[in-house]
């Protein structure tokens, strides 16, 4: 069977990423250990090429492989975000892996494989293709989570992630099989047609829909499917945690939204209430439990759950009964904007945890930040910036993200949801500011004072600078990002 060339061109970025990933695995054993950085740079270069390719073809909608894969503005937006995030993860890891003594080039290969899975997810127009993407992403992440293979916590993290991930994948797959029974196909367009034909009360489709929501709920770490998140995030190597919290969440949301709107768009009244409940639970529980955490990685894990709750507001708006197409698109674009902004601030915060890791110092406890402003003014200020942005206080990007979400919510008549979201944003300020308080208002202990250096490699500096630039620039001048999300939104 011949594969048409046009189809291959459509998935060119995926092909580049996956071939570089395989190449890395092959080159790893034959590269001398002091040259491993070259492999990291190679993957960053591949991502840069992909960025140019995707950005160049932005806007036109192309489908390939008999409509199994679609490349539209929406998919391209997520891919661009994923390239940036993966590139930043790799740059952060170059120094961090050495500090953890796990600097194997396989690491970068798995990051790229995982990225391939994510790209397939956001481009998939068929539930099975999306499922394939999810599995490729997840299996690579299981390996990455256990990369500190001499450390029990890391292995626990990997095992927990694997078991719960496999369980959720099973639920999703079960849902997909039920849909196939109802619609006779797993293509999103044909599911939409079947939904129209069979009506809203079809119990088979309703069960399938619920299972799909549960499956994606696990992937985006929404309450009550969030149980794995804190342990996995805490145990995994910090750069992997950052990657999971940002890239895998963004890709899962990207796929989730497309499935809900393009596949189950006809059943909005059925699922919007369900999503609303999940959204509220996520907002409330994520923010409240984050308050009592003393480990910064764990706190950021709960914060990432809470932010999933905010992002879900966009999906609720998109599905809310009685909203027109324009309002719905605003919900989608505000969620895209929010996740883009979230990526920068969360990556920045995790990078800061990563560069505090030095020698015997774990760098992830709240106490490790004590008096940081005395020891490293610049680092403390950047962390202040990320925390303020995560709390959604202007003039940072975090405010812009929340502002557009709440605009969309009020526009859809969900003013009370905006109020709830904002009240919990005020709650979240409490635990984010605690980090600021510890850094600026406590005196460092004598041995902390003597520990004067940070594990700050040049590449980690670049990552921090990029994250800070994203947080500040999109806070002060958000229009480029806003217009991009508005034009790339699903109708």
């Amino acid at each position, binding site marked *: 069977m011949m594969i048409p060339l046009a189809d291959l061109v459509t998935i060119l970025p995926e092909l580049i990423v996956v071939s570089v990933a395989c190449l890395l695995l092959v080159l790893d054993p034959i590269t001398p250990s002091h040259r491993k950085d070259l492999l990291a740079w190679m993957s960053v270069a591949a991502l840069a090429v992909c960025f140019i390719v995707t950005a160049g073809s932005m806007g036109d909608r192309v489908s390939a492989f008999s409509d199994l894969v679609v490349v539209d503005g929406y998919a391209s937006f997520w891919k661009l975000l994923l390239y940036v995030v993966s590139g930043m993860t790799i740059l952060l890891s170059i120094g961090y892996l050495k500090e953890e003594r796990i600097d194997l080039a396989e690491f970068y290969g798995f990051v790229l494989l995982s990225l391939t899975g994510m790209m397939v997810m956001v481009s998939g127009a068929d539930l099975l293709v999306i499922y394939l993407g999810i599995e490729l992403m997840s299996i690579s992440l299981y390996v990455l989570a256990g990369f500190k293979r001499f450390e029990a916590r890391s292995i626990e993290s990997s095992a927990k992630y694997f078991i719960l991930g496999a369980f959720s994948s099973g639920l999703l797959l079960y849902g997909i099989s039920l849909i196939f029974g109802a619609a006779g196909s797993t293509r999103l367009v044909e599911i939409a047609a079947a939904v129209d034909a069979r009506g809203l009360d079809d119990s088979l489709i309703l069960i399938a829909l619920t299972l799909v929501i549960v499956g994606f709920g696990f992937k985006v770490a929404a309450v009550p499917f969030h149980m794995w998140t804190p342990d996995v995030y805490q145990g995994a190597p910090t750069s992997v945690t950052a990657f999971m919290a940002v890239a895998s969440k963004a890709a899962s949301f990207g796929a989730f939204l497309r499935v809900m709107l393009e596949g189950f768009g006809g059943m909005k009244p059925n699922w919007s209430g369900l999503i609303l409940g999940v959204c509220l639970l996520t907002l409330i529980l994520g923010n409240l439990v984050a308050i009592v955490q003393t480990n910064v990685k764990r706190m950021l894990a709960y914060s990432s759950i809470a932010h999933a709750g905010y992002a879900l507001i966009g999906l609720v708006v998109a599905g809310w009964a009685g909203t027109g197409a324009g309002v719905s698109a605003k919900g989608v674009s505000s969620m895209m904007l929010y996740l883009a902004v979230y990526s920068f601030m969360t990556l920045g915060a995790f990078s800061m945890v990563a560069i505090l890791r030095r020698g015997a110092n774990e760098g992830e406890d709240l106490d490790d930040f004590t008096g940081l*402003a005395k020891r490293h*003014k610049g680092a403390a200020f950047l962390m*202040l910036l990320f925390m*303020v942005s995560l709390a959604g*206080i*202007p*003039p940072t990007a975090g*405010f812009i993200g929340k*502002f557009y979400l*709440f*605009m969309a919510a*009020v*526009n859809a008549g969900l*003013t009370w949801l*905006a*109020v709830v979201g*904002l*009240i919990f*944003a*005020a709650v979240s*300020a*409490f635990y984010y*500011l605690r980090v*600021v*308080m510890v850094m*600026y*208002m406590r005196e460092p202990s004598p041995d902390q004072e003597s520990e004067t250096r940070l594990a700050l490699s040049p590449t980690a500096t670049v990552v921090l600078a990029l994250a800070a630039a994203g947080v500040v620039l999109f806070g002060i*001048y*958000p*229009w480029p990002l*806003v*217009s991009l999300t*508005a034009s790339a939104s699903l109708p």
Partner: protein
Amino acid sequence: MPSRNERFLIEMSSGGFPWLTLVVFLPLLGVAAILLVEEALAKWVALGVSSLGFLVSLAPWALFDESTPAMQFVETHQWIASPSINYAVGVDGISLPLVLLTTLLTPLCVVVSWTAIQTRVREFMISLLVMETATLGVFVSLDFVLFYVFWETMLIPMYLLIGIWGGPNRVYAAIKFFLYTLAGSVLLLVAIIVLYFYAGAESFDILTLSDAEYPPWLQAWLFWAFFAAFAVKVPMFPFHTWLPDAHVEAPTAGSVMLASVLLKLGAYGFLRFSLPMLPDATQQFTSVVLFLSVVAIIYGAYMAFAQADLKKLIAYSSVSHMGFVTLGIFVLNAQGIEGAILQMVNHGITTGALFLCVGIVYERTHSREIVDNSGLATSMPVYATFLVIFALSSVGLPGMNSFVGEFFVLVGAFMWNKAVAAVAALGVILAAAYILWMLQRVVYGTPAKHMSSKLYDMNWCEIGMLAPLAFLVFWIGLYPKPLLDVMHASVDHLVQKQAKVMMVDAAPAVRAPAIAARPSSEADAPKAETR
């Protein structure tokens, strides 16, 4: 059509030199300069920039056209295209005095921190200047989102000012301040968004939103959302509990900024948003706010009696004095509102000066307790003189600034309801009692023995800091006309809008005379129309 007229005036007055942008962002330039110079020079740069900022801010005052209620020195640039959010700034007679107050007090805050702040001077000055930019931004914003951005931005530097350079319990005070004000303002953001959609003008422009009409039920909701944000900031009883903590723990400069500038933001919010945008709800709920104001006046004064800590005493007197401000605003007549604005400026000058006085004595005795600072008149006669001047100003002695403001407010209150005025006047008497009692102990008491050896009188630097404020105390007290002239047109415009709503109301006859603007304003208004 007042709206079209206003538009026209905006067109007319825009396009000149961007004075306001310069005033607002000059401190930020100072921040950049501070980052470049070495730490020892940081305070010199801060002093230079903030003094320059004050001089620059005199220009809009000199060029200000007092005859019109329209916004002046307007600059509008697109910030975000969809939804339309602009960088739009301008001043009218309500915001101009507050801008001047802010730029005047910032250099004084730098001076008072000259020797008091020894650690992390660079960060301190940066926080102070960022704070100045944010507050000035709030006063001049003509776009509601821009306003909110400045309004919230201010929290971070203030949080750091209290939390890093404050007293022993600073961390608690800082987070309490932060969470209180943040919790208050989250509803404000929702209210802004709701206004946007109801006005249907696809704009966050404050004047456009003020011209739109909102159904009464919506106004009621929005009124309380606004109220939550502004009342916490003022702070009104019962949302005042963060204030004593923040004041006591903050370094002197932080207390001055809090008392003189930050507290004005809430009152400014009422004047700029609640009154013009939600006239029906304002009419409906004014008695509730007046009640809370009167409670604040009496309660603040009552609490001030019991304080042994000088800063806490002044903090509670602030609650009481700000009660006069909200009272003046919500009696909804020209006298009350002008008195309120005047009282805002006066409170900024007097209370700021009192906090500076406490800071000066704290540097010498390292205590703010009244018992530790008794009998200062023998060893510090110059200081005692200044303290007496500002304390008497706080009491509202005729010939001094606060008298004029409180008098106007009480006249306004009297026109609204005699009982309210009578109870509020009780606050003035109570203020006289607790302030004079404080003076008696601090200035004329038996000198605290263990301290007397360390005490030295004020140096020229400190005199130079308090002298301009003392001058303003007497200037405003004896000749408030220049300040009042600036406000007349804007306040009349505001009152007329309220009056219009009252006329529409079912029973206009009873209260209509009370809100009639003073005769001269009738002449002012048509003049503005014809321009």
